[in-house]
């Protein structure tokens, strides 16, 4: 199946990646090549074949519901990115992360 420029923009939006109009054309060309490669799969009859996700057919392990991690909030927040928009301060305040306002 062939991809259009508007498909590329829609996918980029779903993936939360900004894409310029100039990039759309180049991306379209490269993605089409890869999808052409993928299309080879459609010639195979897979009726009745169980999909495979893990070679050993293992089941998810369960564990006791106990605390296994210690609180390392300060350590983890020490690598927070800078706020941006003119502020080089780390994007943390009172143990929380700073992001743009989402509720008016």
């Amino acid at each position, binding site marked *: 199946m062939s*991809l259009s420029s508007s*498909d*590329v923009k829609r*996918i*980029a*939006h*779903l*993936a*939360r*990646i*900004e*894409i310029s109009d100039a990039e759309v054309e180049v*991306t379209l060309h*490269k*993605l089409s*090549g*890869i*999808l*052409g*490669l*993928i*299309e*080879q*799969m*459609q010639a*195979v009859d*897979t009726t009745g*074949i*169980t*999909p*495979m*996700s*893990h*070679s*050993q057919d*293992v089941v*998810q*392990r369960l*564990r006791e519901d106990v605390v296994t991690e210690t609180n*390392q909030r300060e*350590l*983890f*927040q*020490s*690598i*927070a*990115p*800078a*706020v*941006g*928009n003119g502020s080089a301060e780390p*994007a943390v305040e009172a143990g929380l*992360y700073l*992001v*743009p306002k*989402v509720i008016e």
Partner: protein
Amino acid sequence: MINKSLKQLGSMLQAKEISSVELTQEYLNRIAALNPEINAYITVDADKTLAQAQAADQLLASGKSGALTGIPIAQKDIFVAKGWKTTCGSKMLETFIGPYNANVIERFDAAGAVNLGKTNMDEFAMGSSNETSYFGKVQNPWDRSRVPGGSSGGSAAAVAARLCAAATGTDTGGSIRQPASLCGLSGLKPTYGLVSRYGMIAFASSLDQAGPMAKSCEDMALMMNVMTGFDERDSTSLQREKEDYTRDLNKPLAGLKVGLPKEYFAEGLGAEVAKVVEGAIAEYRKLGAEIVDISLPNTMLSIPVYYVLAPAEASSNLSRFDGVRYGHRAGEYTDLMDMYCKSRAEGFGAEVKRRILIGTYVLSAGYYDAYYLKAQQIRRLIAQDFENAFKQCDIIMGPTAPSTAFKAGEKADDPVSMYLQDIYTIAVNLAGLPGMSIPAGFAEEDGKSLPVGIQIIGNYFDEARMLNVGHAYQQVTDWHLQMPEGI
């Protein structure tokens, strides 16, 4: 010193003929001299490394040391290491300092090994040439104008240029084996689930597996003893008895059945590579192996299947990089959506974005059955090919990569031709089997000798036998002892 095996280095350290600090300093000196050009390492931190070497010397003095105590190992920059910059080859993680240790790092630390630094790699392990790294391409020590392969290209170049005693790599579609082949070293991707993925930055979780990259199979066996083992923090880690991977190294090969898949010797295999592989097979006959012809009929489908499954899983795994808690955040943005989109557009390189977009597309509403589900069904057919083949043989042998190292830039603009580099390696990941590449000779190109590897594929959990098969070959050949000129 730089050509000694891990076993020899271990004996010298135990006998106090050399200290870990002296050995480590020698490698640090070599890195300082050669790395500015080869670019095998992204991060070197002599203070941290030497502190570990001092601790190793104390361990050696106390008599509580193990086989790898005091030995300097290079770690692929995909493993989170506490206090170390951990970039995964990406601008996204340019300033990321590891807040904890990956299981692989913990295990080497516990063994008293010394972390020499973090090696260069394709961004988020997506590539076969190391050219997608944000931190610049890596030179192949055998011909500096050529690529080392990828994605573990920095680790491969570091071992080949003797900038470490051994290194770690990870392999999602060939990322240990292909660079091992292109740089003339030994590399092993274990059975999926043997090495914990905890703290190994995820690319395609159902395929990713870490393994050793070293000068010989004997070295790799010692590293496997350290790297493998159950870890409850990785939900796909397998609960198994601990094995000694050195136990079968010296077994005779008489009666070993080696299967040659006809699909691995078909169109697409370079003539020079084919010649080397045939030479290796002749050597195995002399060692008493019986050669049988086999078929893996779905080999060609492994590439399309992989380029659905790996990008799909990657698009999900890489959604965590949103500029909120760590990693790159855009300098200028309007609202939260704009912050996400700009942070990711700036933080990821072109190949990573391509794969996220492909993955997003194949997982988008209405396409799941046609792509992801279909790919997982064909994945089972590919695994069944191997299951059938192993009824006829003990080990499968063939080329690792279709060609020798190619020139930097040669395939950088053509993703599909780059993807075909992994035609012989990808099916092994899809099936979850162990695969290994060892040096088997050289091919001449433009007046330079370029290494060629052969691939050895084993049945599940057959790593000890594979290492035996490789070690036996390395006892009667010296391809693995060759060194590039000018290092």
